[in-house]
């Protein structure tokens, strides 16, 4: 191989790598992580600031957890999730998650926008701003479903008396 050819190859490689790394140049190397708003009234009232599972687990695995919730509640009719610490929580995106994380734009969307993902959950599941827009009826106002506990008043505490022996 002649010396001049080698120069051309390396120049071409350099240009290719620079172009392939364009997203990094474009977005910056050390962009700050998105800041999530955890200061909602519901979260402020929590006795212990703990999500369904530990924060690190939720950050990494919430999508898997939600998919498991979806399959268990829809396909198997098992709607109560027993967390690692034993709390029993209604497996529901809109009834459980959104009770605390009331503002989707300041919580869910911050990371999803940053990561460039667009989950289709909200096409069907009703988010709080949709409630404000067009919905005035809530279960509580209609006098039914008022006994459905908002997370984190866990279902276990309510059902302790009524639960018989046997497997969960």
């Amino acid at each position: 191989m002649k010396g001049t050819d080698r120069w051309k190859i390396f120049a071409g490689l350099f240009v290719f790598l620079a172009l392939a790394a364009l997203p990094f140049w474009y977005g910056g190397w050390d962009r700050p992580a998105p800041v999530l708003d955890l200061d909602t009234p519901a979260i402020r009232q929590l006795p212990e600031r703990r999500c369904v599972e530990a924060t690190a687990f939720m950050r990494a695995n919430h999508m898997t957890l939600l998919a498991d919730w979806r399959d268990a509640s829809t396909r198997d009719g098992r709607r109560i999730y027993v967390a690692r610490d034993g709390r029993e929580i209604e497996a529901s995106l809109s009834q459980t998650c959104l009770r605390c994380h009331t503002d989707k734009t300041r919580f869910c969307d911050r990371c999803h926008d940053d990561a460039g993902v667009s989950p289709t959950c909200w096409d069907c599941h009703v988010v709080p701003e949709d409630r404000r827009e067009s919905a005035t009826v809530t279960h509580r106002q209609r006098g039914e479903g008022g006994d459905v506990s908002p997370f984190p008043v866990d279902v276990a505490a309510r059902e302790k008396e009524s639960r018989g022996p046997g497997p969960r």
Partner: protein
Amino acid sequence: MHSSRRDFLKLTGIALIGAAVPDALLPAGLAPAWAGAPGFRPDVRALKAARWGMVIDLAKCRPDCTDCIAACHAAHNVPAFGNPKDEIAWIRRETFGRIFPAQVHRHLEPRRQAGPVIALCNHCANPPCVRVCPTGATFRRPDGIVMMDYHRCIGCRFCIAACPYGARGMNYRDPRPFIRRIDPGFPTRTRGVVEKCNFCVERLAVGKPPACVAACPYGALTFGDLEAPDSAVRRAIAGRTVLRRKPELGTEPQVYYTL
């Protein structure tokens, strides 16, 4: 490190055997983070049955009443597109002549023929919609409810073609603008999915009867376990003349009409 083809094949075999070992058999240290810990259980408030069914007493149903329809469609965010071609109804009011055409004859009183009949998904014991669904989105629960998992619906509409009762409707457009008031207690649907009556699984799961049954002011709708001899539905059909829609098709509808 030099590795021969033989070593590579050995390693592949060992890895395959390892992958076949269920997570539960692994020692705690080796188990993946997800295995073992959390779980699911049904709500203890849930109503249970061997086979859910409904009895509609046509003698009690009034022609001027649509309470069951209003209650159902409000509870499930059913859109009203305002166009018969796109109509979606989980429960609808039809006439006797349209629902039971085989019972119509020349001497049937017109009043009877035009009388109201409430029509909804029959939750067939042998549901053709379940058989044709290519994704398993429509499935039959062990308690007999034919349910839709909207997450899996691809909008192919085979089920609409298969259903002999017209119990299903397709969202050809985004339904949200056509829902009068969105009830946050139940999801809406999205464009491109089929929907139908679910016998109120979400209400049964927390110990409540279906919305239509609870809303009927005349007690024309009865809901219960068809396998339990002393259940409300069995008492409602005992000794009565019972009609079912198109029983000759062999779908075994589980909605019974008493005259």
